[in-house]
């Protein structure tokens, strides 16, 4: 199993390696010509890069999978959340990149690291809060025995948006490097367009994970119906652990 995972990660890395070379040469190509074909090529590669980039570790896939595995969600929700995460993820990267580049410029990386650490701190605290919220909600519903009748849509939407915000708030370094590379070549419009298409690609991957999780939840519907309460608590606990894990890595970054 470990071997399969490493082979998968290795393959993802090789694809990113190839795409990294292709996208840099394409963007440089766009430096020499403003042809639509060149722009379209760069954007197509950025999309593909986004799809593959998000398939590697991170980007909230684990959180999305845990969240949707607890049942009572639909494919549309999974798709929406996947894209919300990707959009927030990309916007935070673009905004921070532009601000850091034009304000701090020469100390770009050091400042980016600091911004990232604060964003990760906020992200981990939000993730822990979501886990606690899910547990409290499950316990209260169980107590009131209103689980089946209660219209939960608004509440659920709130937690979904929180999920998107908590994960997306950390700027995506992949988007950031592409954006900065374009800025350095004075391709400002291309930097924004590349960030958008890359986030569309990332959103697709994250959405697919969410959709697979919904499929899994539906396939185990009987179990979920009987033990949904336990599953929701478990999901909340795992999300809290994920947040704590992330928080510990932020703490390590701060003390270093």
């Amino acid at each position, binding site marked *: 199993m470990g071997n399969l995972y490493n082979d998968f990660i*290795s393959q993802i890395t090789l694809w990113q*390696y190839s795409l*990294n070379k292709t996208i*840099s040469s394409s963007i440089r190509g766009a430096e020499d010509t403003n042809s639509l074909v060149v722009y379209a090529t760069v954007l197509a590669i950025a999309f593909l890069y986004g799809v593959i980039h998000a398939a590697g570790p991170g980007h909230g896939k684990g959180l999305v999978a845990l969240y949707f595995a607890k049942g009572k969600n639909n494919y549309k929700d999974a798709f929406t959340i996947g894209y919300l995460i990707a959009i927030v993820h990309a916007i935070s990267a673009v905004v921070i990149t532009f601000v850091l580049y034009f304000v701090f410029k020469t100390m*770009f990386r050091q400042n*980016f*690291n600091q911004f990232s650490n604060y964003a990760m701190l906020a992200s981990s605290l939000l993730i822990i809060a979501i886990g606690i919220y899910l547990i409290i909600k499950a316990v209260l519903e169980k107590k009131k025995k209103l689980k089946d009748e209660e219209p939960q849509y608004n509440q659920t939407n709130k937690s979904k948006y929180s999920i998107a915000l908590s994960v997306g708030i950390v700027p995506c*370094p992949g988007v950031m490097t592409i954006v900065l590379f374009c800025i350095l070549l004075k391709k400002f419009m291309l930097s924004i367009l590349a960030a958008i298409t890359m986030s569309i690609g990332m959103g697709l991957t994250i959405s697919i994970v969410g959709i697979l999780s919904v499929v899994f939840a539906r396939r185990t519907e009987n179990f979920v119906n009987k033990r949904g309460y336990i599953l929701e608590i478990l999901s909340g606990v795992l999300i809290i652990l994920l947040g704590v894990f992330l928080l510990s890595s932020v703490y390590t970054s701060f003390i270093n």
Partner: protein
Amino acid sequence: MKLKIKFLLLFPLFLYAHPHTFIDLYPIVISEKNIIKTIKFKWEIDDISSQLLKMEFDQNMDGKIDEEENSYIEKNYFEPLSTYDFYTDIMIKNISIKTKPKDFKAFFVGDKVVYSFKVDIEAHKDDIYIDFYDTDNFVAIVLKKEFVISLVDYYIKGVDNDFYFAHRLSFKKEK
């Protein structure tokens, strides 16, 4: 200082990151009668990361790295990588040897930032293999057969060590 350890390495985003920096590794093997004496390494950093690094490396913006800039890069960006054994795990008779690079030099080749350094080894070719990998900084080390220059026969293979994937350079034909 520690922030800079993440150097290349761009962004310490742990769960949120994966390789954003790719290093093409070019080893030149110096040998004498089946004894590996020294290996010279050249790290060629990918185009995108190189552009970012150039902003910080070429402080006087003259398009090249002078001695003062080289010392600054070595001290603040390269030496901290000793924590990670410079992504180079040298095994002699199955014992891991600390990587001690010498003659570090950073320079630009076209659009790329390149590091060069050498490591003295002094071991029989059958006793040594080297694994190249990074588990901490989201750097992908890329080693291909055609990247190596060696008079001694050599072999490149991918090694899955459960917690990481490495490229292995060896000189002994496996049975």
